[in-house]
């Protein structure tokens, strides 16, 4: 299967917008044109490659192939979120574990409750949303845990000096971190449909599915993303605060990483 010429023409036409953005960058000396072009070309190549890969996997519909793809997606998400966790020891492992936990729990529930079937066509796009969302939550929460622990080190050490263990000393500040990770998805759930139509729903409507059918799926997607955010957020908080304490409940600062 190849991309038909008319589709290719549409893509090239849309690329005019990227060129316009690059020109604006050049004109305003934003020094972003190279990045804009590189990102756009990269997106083109990545998406074309994934399009072919998915076609292959959908046709094969082999559970092991699905699991392999999910593992690759989770690993990339863990690596990416881990890069954002600068200042948190073992941030890559923390991110990988937290994202895996949130994604497995969410996807497992969806399959177990019979909401989606374990077929490549259903699971892989859904997993993309769940894992991608978990990755964002993990980055946000890990960064916030780091900022809270650094910013509140005085209070944390005061609590430790009074006989609190690491968990007790960090706890009041972890709530704020979890809150920051959950807020974007809660906010977007509150305003869904009022400000913008979500990507999945937009895609379905453009593909000719009736709006009522599209919203049914979108409702499930929003609920699923809230679940994934809370599972991943909790796991991230739970795993990342520990990276700041020794087994003797001493706060590690400036020595992390």
């Amino acid at each position: 299967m190849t991309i038909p010429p008319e589709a290719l023409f549409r893509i090239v036409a849309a690329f005019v917008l990227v060129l316009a953005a690059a020109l604006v960058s050049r004109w305003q000396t934003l020094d972003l044109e190279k990045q804009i072009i590189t990102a756009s070309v990269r997106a083109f190549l990545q998406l074309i490659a994934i399009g072919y890969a998915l076609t292959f996997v959908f046709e094969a519909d082999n559970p092991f192939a699905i699991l392999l793809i999910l593992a690759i997606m989770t690993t990339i998400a863990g690596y990416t979120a881990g890069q954002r966790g600068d200042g948190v020891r073992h941030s890559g492992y923390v991110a990988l574990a937290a994202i895996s936990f949130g994604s497995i729990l969410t996807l497992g529930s969806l399959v177990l409750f019979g909401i989606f079937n374990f077929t490549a066509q259903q699971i892989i796009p859904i997993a993309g949303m769940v894992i991608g969302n978990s990755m964002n939550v993990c980055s946000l929460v890990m960064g916030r845990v780091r900022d809270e622990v650094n910013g509140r080190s005085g209070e944390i050490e005061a609590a430790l000096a009074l006989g609190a263990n690491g968990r007790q000393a960090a706890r009041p500040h972890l709530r704020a971190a979890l809150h920051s990770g959950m807020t974007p998805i809660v906010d977007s759930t509150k305003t869904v449909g009022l400000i913008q139509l979500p990507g999945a729903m937009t895609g379905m409507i453009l593909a000719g599915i009736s709006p009522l059918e599209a919203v049914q799926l979108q409702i499930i997607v929003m609920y699923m993303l809230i679940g994934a955010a809370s599972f991943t957020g909790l796991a991230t908080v739970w795993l990342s605060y520990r990276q700041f304490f020794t087994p003797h409940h001493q706060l590690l600062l400036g020595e992390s990483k």
Partner: protein
Amino acid sequence: METPRLQTHNLSLVRNGRPVLHDVNITIQPAEIVCLIGPSGGGKSSLLRCLNRLTEPPPNTVFINGKEMTTMDVIALRQQVGMVFQSPALFSGNVADNVGYGAMLRKRPLSPAAIIDLLKMADLPADYAHRPITELSGGEAQRVGLARALANKPQTLLLDEPTSALDPDSRLHIRQTISKLRRELGLTILWVTHHIDEMHEIIDRVIVLENGQVNG
């Protein structure tokens, strides 16, 4: 001879590749008030942190009541050896929340009467219990920090420049309080300060720490 309350034996510490303490040997007897002085960066805070095990000392270098520190339960140790910091670092909430923190950790909340007793010990009026911490002056906040540490019934208090940000009147007030606590509770005090000239009337001894070593 009585077992020393605190003792270090050739305590050396390296942090981030830099020696911070070098063969520090100090002995502090029960109910002594000892001042720890020396230039900034000389190792005073590092020594105090080792004595409360906020920083890990090497094994067989710190002894509390004759017991090797790293063999003790760290939580119990910190309740026994309290610490008050330069910045009181109070927790959000009111004065009673702070004073009752240690007891709350052990799931044995303090009675209102016990909180008032602790406030009195730190020379704070009883009606301060429900005052939000945002409404306290620097001196008052430091007293709440002191009452919070006293709530654990420690044998020893490590004071890391608790009066450095306070005005002379507040400093005098804290000195009087500490002196009273030693008299009434037999507390052992190791006090880091830059105001050594004000301390002579209440202290037993001075230890000078310079470049991580004890001088004189």
